[in-house]
């Protein structure tokens, strides 16, 4: 075997390998010899088939097999002999081969860059720490209490008012036709809870105990039941009793109903729960900072092949988004070239960080333990309730997907490792500040980017100064790339570990978790303004309470 290096350009290497015909012939011979005992041909006793016949019949197949093996082995050998660490599968191309001739082929590969992890101790980060203020806990308690309303009969009779709970019998009909589900007896209806359609509840305000009333409501056009949608319905309602609803007292009793031992216990559980939310939020923040820092500190060369692959994955997703019609509006107005260069930069950054993290992991012998993997697997399975078994089977059958699970885990561990070394300053903030921080981390870039794109479009429409236009283009590209990384970056290192084949999957998975963390909070602040800031705390009512919650709501 002769190996000659034909080119070495950056990370790219090319070798020419020559295998002599005699070597190959020898291997074929050996293989035929081996085959001899296995072959059964009519007219011959097993093992007595003459070699010439064997060669004629199986020669071609054996040759192919031997060649493939020879190429694999020799390329592997060439790589190990030179201590190369290929970044991805080497490309092998057979340049010339004829029977009885020397085999000549070329190996093209990209080696892993030499990565010198920067001194992590010099990285300084800021971790935001949230002390959960007591009032937040009180609020959460208040909400829990409201979900557990006590009802008691009125002390003295009075007309029903909003907030009361009525015990009613009702029977409804549409066009004189009664439909299933439109009647009930002894139904507890809280006025003002909007549990019923339209102004059903409002029409009951002012009724007295024992009153009978006729309530007319129109079902909205967008009602779930097609038969009822847009129809007018008449309900015969009898008010049997009016109950006074008051929130449950905040005491040990309430705590017990939520599965805690006493009020203090409930409080500490709430605190823990809220703390967990903020902790993961602040961790995401720190990780972003860290990744940014790392990206700034390292600029080693990155194998083009990996970048191509990552870019391909991003680009495909973009195309899919485009077809589905939910393209980022900011992207929609850009032409293909700009987009491509933007996403290419992102791909490169991801690959670089991925390589770096996996390298750090390798150097420090960080590995994912079997138990941790198991845990992740269980978590994954829990995401598909009722189909856990299938999930487990899937992972048992596909080691590749287990590798997908392992990626993010490893990344987390490496990040932990770096964080241990890095200088992490802690700053106490209030929950609101944390959330603001979280949002603001990409908002400044957003605005900056908006500016950049705006000025870019100005300049391009005006066509005054081409040079400044391109400069701004570059600026926008850059800010864009960082921004994109913010939103998707959480999983980026996982995306390009050595098992690069699985990149796209991994990144999507990581992305979904990241975006979940992000949207969860913003929604909490935005949509449910009435129930104050955090749906997070709403979710805090643990599992035992959740069933109660639903029951109390439906009552």
């Amino acid at each position, binding site marked *: 075997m002769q190996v000659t290096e034909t080119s070495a350009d950056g990370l790219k290497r090319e070798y020419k390998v020559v295998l002599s015909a005699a070597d190959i012939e020898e291997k074929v011979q050996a293989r035929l010899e081996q085959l001899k005992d296995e072959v059964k041909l009519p*007219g011959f*006793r097993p093992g007595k088939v003459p070699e010439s016949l064997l060669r*004629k019949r199986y020669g071609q197949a054996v040759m192919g097999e031997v060649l493939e093996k020879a190429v694999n082995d020799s390329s592997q050998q060439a790589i190990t002999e030179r201590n190369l660490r290929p970044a991805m599968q080497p490309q092998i191309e057979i340049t010339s081969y004829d029977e009885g001739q020397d085999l000549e082929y070329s190996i093209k590969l990209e080696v892993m860059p030499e990565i010198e992890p920067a001194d992590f101790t010099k990285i300084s980060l800021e971790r935001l720490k949230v002390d959960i203020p007591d009032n937040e806990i009180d609020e959460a308690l208040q909400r829990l209490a409201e979900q557990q309303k006590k009802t008691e009969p009125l002390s003295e009779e009075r007309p029903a008012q909003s907030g009361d709970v009525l015990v009613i019998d009702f029977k409804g009909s549409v066009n004189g036709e009664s439909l299933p589900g439109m009647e009930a007896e002894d139904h507890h209806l809280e006025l003002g809870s909007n549990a019923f359609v339209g102004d059903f509840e409002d029409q009951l305000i002012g009724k007295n105990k024992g009153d009978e009333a006729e309530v007319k409501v129109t079902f909205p056009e967008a009602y779930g039941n097609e038969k009822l949608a847009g129809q007018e319905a008449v309900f015969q309602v009898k008010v049997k009793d009016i109950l006074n609803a008051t929130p449950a007292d905040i005491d040990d009793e309430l705590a017990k109903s939520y599965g805690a031992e006493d009020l203090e216990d409930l409080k500490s559980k709430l605190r823990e729960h809220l703390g967990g939310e903020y902790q993961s939020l602040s961790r995401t923040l720190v990780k972003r900072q860290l990744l940014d820092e790392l990206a700034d500190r390292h600029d080693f060369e990155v194998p083009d092949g990996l970048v191509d692959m990552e870019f391909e994955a991003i680009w495909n997703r973009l195309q899919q988004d485009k077809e589905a019609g939910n393209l980022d509006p900011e992207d929609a107005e850009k032409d293909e070239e700009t987009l491509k260069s933007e996403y290419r930069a992102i791909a490169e950054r991801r690959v670089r960080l991925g390589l770096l993290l996996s390298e750090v992991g390798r150097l420090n012998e960080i590995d994912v333990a079997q138990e941790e993997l198991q845990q992740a697997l269980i978590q994954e399975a829990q995401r598909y309730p009722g189909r856990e078994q299938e999930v487990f089977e899937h992972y048992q059958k596909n080691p590749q997907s287990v590798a997908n699970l392992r990626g993010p885990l490893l990344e987390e561990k490496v990040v932990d490792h770096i964080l241990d070394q890095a200088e992490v300053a802690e700053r106490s903030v209030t929950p609101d500040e944390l959330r603001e921080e979280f949002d603001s981390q990409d908002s400044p870039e957003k605005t900056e980017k908006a500016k950049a794109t705006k000025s870019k479009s100005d300049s391009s429409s005006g066509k005054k100064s081409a040079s400044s236009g391109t400069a701004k283009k570059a600026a926008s590209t850059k800010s864009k790339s960082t921004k994109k990384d913010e939103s998707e970056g959480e999983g980026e290192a996982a995306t390009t570990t050595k098992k690069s084949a699985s990149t796209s999957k991994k990144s999507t998975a990581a992305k979904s978790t990241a975006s979940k963390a992000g949207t969860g909070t913003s929604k909490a602040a935005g949509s449910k303004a009435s129930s104050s800031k955090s749906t997070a705390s709403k979710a805090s009512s643990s599992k035992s309470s959740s069933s109660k919650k639903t029951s109390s709501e439906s009552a």
Partner: protein
Amino acid sequence: MSKGRARTTAAGKLSGERMHEVIRKPVITEKATLAGEHNQVTFQVSLDATKPEIRTAVETLFKVKVKAVNTLRQQGKTKRFRGRPGQRSDYKKAMVTLEEGHSIDVTTGI
């Protein structure tokens, strides 16, 4: 097998069709390959083929010189198939010895 067809007695005037009829297939067995080392090729031939016919057929089809032709009739075995006695067909084998320096690669076919 086309019986009753006018057959040329002079072996040199065998029709092309007849030649392919005469030579059925090569016999590829351990014994036959062993004989191959002595410049002999074995064929299964039609039952009514004669030695001169076989000689011309082999000489023209494979473009070789034949030294001698030995033939034998192999009687079909009596076999039982689902309890009923059956008879395998008879066949004729021809061992053709070639002149020095000639050879036929039987495994590649015509």
